[in-house]
């Protein structure tokens, strides 16, 4: 063990990171309960009381899982990792910005939650106009987004301080990944910020009386697709940087890892129309351009897959494995910190294949807005990303609270992971299957007046509900472990694993840290993909829509 391995995140940074992680898991717990109920309702197993609507639950689940759990956890993870790779400390500016961000995000989340509870915002986490929620829902959402910008500024400030103290050196890989993710996030959220601040807030307060629907949707999806990369990139950071350390190996290639992150910045923005393939008002050729750019993201994903398996194999061989697949057995299967993210990677293979189907314009016609899509992202974000975050929580929380991930906790963590996988396979499998038959997503219990086709779906809806029950059970175990690691586990030292680059890797090209260049290319691609169609939407807009409260 060298000196670097012993770096501990100091108390101040730990406090900030933990504040984020706690909110993340509170949001997760609420959302898991909603998820369970959604499955049971759709399967016709329970009926909700009068005072609680299905779409209220679904709004809560989407907001809490998709926006709160992920965003808070990601910023908490990055802040801890930034400190871990800067001698254990965050720069003073970074701490201050981090706390400002946390307060804004927490207040914003609180405001949105209250409006949802009062049934004034059952508009789902995509809040498509012209359904008009309480203005405070949009203000809350705006605070959540702007707060997350401050989280990003904290990461940038710490990175700048590191660069200043280490002139001429290549930055730590983990910080590089945090910075690229947060750059992507700053650009991506511009779309939704413009939508909320210039369209929805003035309209919901009644200052203007109409909204251009297609434009609001295009702005939303400018944000909506990179949102999924914002979830994925932190998981990739853990895969690239922490997993090699956990399995006792080295980072396969520093420059490849950085290149794939740069490619994500470039390729994840100019593609939002693949969520609007079935929409009138956008021409088929612009849709095709976005489809092509979307599919290009396959390249960095293939690079990641190669790097991961190369790390596994070289590590296994260094440990003496001889035969073609002998290295497979040398991996630490009994260590939840490896097992959970590894299973996440494995599930990413079918998930990625499903994504290619979704993005292809003709195939999209079969599955668009069916529950297949929900099945798809419960594999990507709900399994690959979520399992990686759970595993990270299992070491970060004790690292930050000065406790240990005990043997028993580790074993329970593996049980939790297996339950999650079983539950998710059932739920997501049923969702995929239902979707292919045309069952819609985001829909309360229904047989469509005893329609034969819809009645035929019911047994799969029940399978989906059973998967949800197992997932809920797994969530209880997870929350129990999180509380145990935060407050009750024995005192000790838990490592925050950060891998080193293997000796025979070459020096990292300097150009990878020329952020101005990458942001410039990203901006160019965005103008190319969005300039003309957005100008058309603005110049040839239909008369604006009034607001409706249909729930």
């Amino acid at each position, binding site marked *: 063990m060298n000196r670097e391995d012993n770096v501990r995140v100091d108390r101040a940074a730990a406090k900030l990171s933990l504040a984020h992680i706690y909110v993340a898991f509170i949001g997760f717990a609420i959302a898991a309960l909603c998820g369970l109920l959604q499955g049971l309702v759709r399967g016709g197993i329970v009926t909700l009381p009068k005072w609680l609507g299905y779409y209220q639950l679904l709004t809560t689940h989407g907001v809490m899982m998709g926006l709160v759990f992920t965003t808070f956890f990601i910023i908490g993870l990055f802040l801890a990792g930034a400190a871990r790779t800067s001698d254990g400390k965050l720069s003073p500016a970074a701490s201050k910005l981090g706390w400002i961000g946390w307060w804004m995000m927490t207040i914003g989340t609180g405001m949105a939650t209250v409006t949802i509870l009062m049934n004034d915002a059952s508009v789902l986490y995509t809040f498509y106009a012209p359904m008009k929620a309480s203005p405070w829902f949009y203000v809350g959402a705006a605070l959540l987004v702007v707060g997350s910008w401050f989280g990003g500024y904290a990461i940038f400030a710490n990175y700048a301080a590191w660069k200043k103290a280490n002139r001429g050196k290549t930055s730590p890989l983990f910080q590089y990944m945090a910075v690229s993710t947060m750059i992507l996030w700053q650009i991506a959220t511009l779309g939704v910020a413009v939508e909320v601040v210039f369209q929805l807030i003035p309209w919901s307060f009644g200052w203007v009386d109409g909204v251009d*629907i297609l434009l609001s949707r295009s702005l939303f999806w400018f944000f909506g697709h990179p949102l999924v990369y914002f979830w994925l990139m932190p998981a990739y950071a853990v895969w690239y940087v922490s997993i090699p350390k956990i399995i006792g190996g080295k980072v396969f290639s520093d420059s490849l890892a950085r290149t794939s992150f740069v490619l994500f910045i470039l390729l994840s923005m100019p593609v939002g129309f693949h969520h609007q393939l079935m929409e*009138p*008002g956008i021409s088929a050729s612009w*849709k*095709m351009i976005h489809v092509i750019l979307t599919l290009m993201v396959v390249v960095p994903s293939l690079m990641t897959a190669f790097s991961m398996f190369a790390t596994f194999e070289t590590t296994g061989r260094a440990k003496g494995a001889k035969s073609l697949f002998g290295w497979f057995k040398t991996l630490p299967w009994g260590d939840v910190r490896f097992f959970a993210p590894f299973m996440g990677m494995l599930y990413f293979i079918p998930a990625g294949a499903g994504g*290619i189907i979704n993005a292809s314009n003709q195939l999209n*016609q079969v599955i668009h807005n069916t529950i297949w899509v929900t099945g798809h992202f419960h594999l990507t974000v709900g399994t690959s990303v979520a399992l990686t975050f759970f595993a990270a929580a299992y070491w970060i929380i004790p690292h930050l609270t000065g406790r240990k991930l005990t043997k028993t906790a580790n074993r329970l963590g593996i049980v939790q992971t297996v339950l999650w996988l079983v539950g998710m396979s059932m739920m997501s499998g049923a969702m995929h299957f239902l979707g292919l038959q*045309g069952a819609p*997503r985001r829909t309360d219990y229904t047989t469509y007046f005893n329609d034969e086709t819809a009645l035929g779906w019911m047994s799969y809806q029940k399978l989906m509900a059973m998967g949800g029950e197992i997932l809920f059970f797994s969530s209880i175990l997870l929350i129990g472990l999180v509380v145990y690691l935060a407050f009750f586990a024995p005192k000790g030292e838990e490592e925050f694993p950060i891998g080193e680059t293997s000796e025979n890797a070459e020096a990292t090209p300097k150009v990878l840290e020329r952020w101005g260049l990458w942001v410039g290319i990203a901006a160019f691609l965005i103008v190319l993909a969005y300039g003309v169609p957005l100008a058309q939407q603005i110049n040839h807009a239909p008369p604006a829509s009034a607001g409706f409260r249909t729930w």
Partner: protein
Amino acid sequence: MHLHRYEKIWLMLGTGALALFIVILSVNAFAMGMTPPSHMEMIDPKKVDQTAPFDKPGLKKIGPNEYELVMVSFAFGYQPGNVEVPKGAKVTFITTSKDVVHGFQIPGTNVNTMVLPGHVSKITHTFDEPGKFLILCNEYCGAGHQIMATHVIVK
């Protein structure tokens, strides 16, 4: 930047497969006319009932066994509902929304389009088999979203 030989092969195969896939998609879309529904016509969403053709929704014969079916989508239904067409009919559905965003989907077929206020959606399907086909809304539109449905009856 140096790439491992196997990685080069891996990326070349992957990128090649991707390029082929993109070519197939494009040929499919543009040469074979299978683009997704992308109708560009607009309408004032506040005046749907007064604007043609939505002022007189219903089935209209436009050729031998070829029809246009004009339907208004609203929270929570389609007007008119339960329309009958003969077996083998080629039907072009034309719809728009009077209020919020809706969906228009017929499970078991490729009929699937969004319905946005301010825009007119069009999608065509040939019903080769007789039966009762479910039309449902697949975009959340409010408290009654789960009952927003009707049927096409093919005889």
